[in-house]
């Protein structure tokens, strides 16, 4: 098991090393007047670690993380509630489902521009994250409830498992795998939409504003370093969620 993990890690490190070499070569070969737009990976990594020493960097990371997390969590909660309502009650299906389909289809940039007219910039990334995550969670919850396992439903009916008990021990466990899988895929989407919103709306302390500022000052090494920061944060966030889920799943499929 341990050697399998080590092999996987070596493969990942080799892939990173390969692309770093490609990047370094491209940066070396590019003409001098364009070099500022493609600094070498060594410079970017140096800048990345230099940013580590700045309190403003950590404040930006903290507040951006908080906004994305809040938006993501709200999106998950609202998506689950909306999914339960449309999956169980016809009236809510008629009213809510078209709205969810529209929200899902609206390009994120259009959404940001429109929401910008009505919502404060410091909470706009939270709202955008929420509206990006909510419809995909809603869709899965709704589909899982509409197509709920007929056999399990009949079992609950015959054994008279009803109400809250049925919801907690029959419905939720049966649909949870698909819903959790969707939530995991929504984490990456939350980061992309959250940071895009910050770049367009520039809330006071944020990675997005730092990215924008670095671009305006032509500090492209910082642009790359902040991008690297977002990638790492997004990966850590997804990793933590997947880790929690895989532990739960292993307990179920493994030896109990």
């Amino acid at each position: 098991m341990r050697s399998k993990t080590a092999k996987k890690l070596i493969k990942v490190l080799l892939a990173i090393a390969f692309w770093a070499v490609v990047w370094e070569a491209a940066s070396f070969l590019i003409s001098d007047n364009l070099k500022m737009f493609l600094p070498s990976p060594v410079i970017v990594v140096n800048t990345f670690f230099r940013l580590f020493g700045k309190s403003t960097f950590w404040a930006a990371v903290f507040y951006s993380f908080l906004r994305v997390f809040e938006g993501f969590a709200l999106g998950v909660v609202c998506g689950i509630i909306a999914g339960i309502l449309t999956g169980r009650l016809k009236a809510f299906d008629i009213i809510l489902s078209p709205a969810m389909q529209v929200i899902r289809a609206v390009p994120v940039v259009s959404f940001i521009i429109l929401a910008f007219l009505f919502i404060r910039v410091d909470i706009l990334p939270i709202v955008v994250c929420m509206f990006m995550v909510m419809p995909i969670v809603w869709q899965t919850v709704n589909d899982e409830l509409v197509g709920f396992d007929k056999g399990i439903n009949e079992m609950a009916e015959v054994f008279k498992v009803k109400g809250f008990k049925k919801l907690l021990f029959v419905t939720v466990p049966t649909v949870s795998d698909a819903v959790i899988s969707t939530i995991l895929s929504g984490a990456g989407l939350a980061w992309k939409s959250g940071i895009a919103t910050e770049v367009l709306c520039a809330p006071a302390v944020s990675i997005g504003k730092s990215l924008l500022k670095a671009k305006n000052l032509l500090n492209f090494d910082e642009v790359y370093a902040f991008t690297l920061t977002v990638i790492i944060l997004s990966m850590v966030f997804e990793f933590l969620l997947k880790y929690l889920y895989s532990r739960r799943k292993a307990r179920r499929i493994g030896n109990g």
Partner: protein
Amino acid sequence: MVDFKNVDFSYGEKAVIKDLSFTVASGKNLLLFGPSGCGKTTVARLIMGLEKPDSGVISAPDNVSVVFQEDRLIDNISVLKNITLPLCKEKYAFAKQLLAEFGLCDIAGKYPPSLSGGMKRRVAIIRAAAYGGDVIILDEPFNGIDKENINTTVAILNREYTDKGKSIILISHNKKDAEYFGADILELG
């Protein structure tokens, strides 16, 4: 008691049961026997109230227990929770006693995906036996179960149903299965 009087049932255009009448008195057991598609499981579904007859009258107790043809266990909750799910707290000890009688105490905390087919089948039987009810329906209950565990199942179900004046309705392709429960045979199809 289960009583069918001139019951007809069809799935759309396809008539599955025509003018079926039978009675299973309390304390009596019945084997529903016949080829695939003859309506054995449909009769069971009618008894459980999962289907309504097109015509005729069905009389059955409100508390029917069942071992479905498929195990119908919930994957994301433990074996013990699957068994105790339909039970009131007073019956938890009885459920644990049944697990012990089947020699399955050590899997109580495990989850269905980690069990073998035979184990899942026995868990479904324990769930039904622990639930009780005046009638238990067993739809092909011995699929994937070895001889020793069939004997255990038969002994426990006879103790909990036949000996207590309740009824067992067994669905099987094998006529000899009636002998396990001293059941009358109703041939369909």
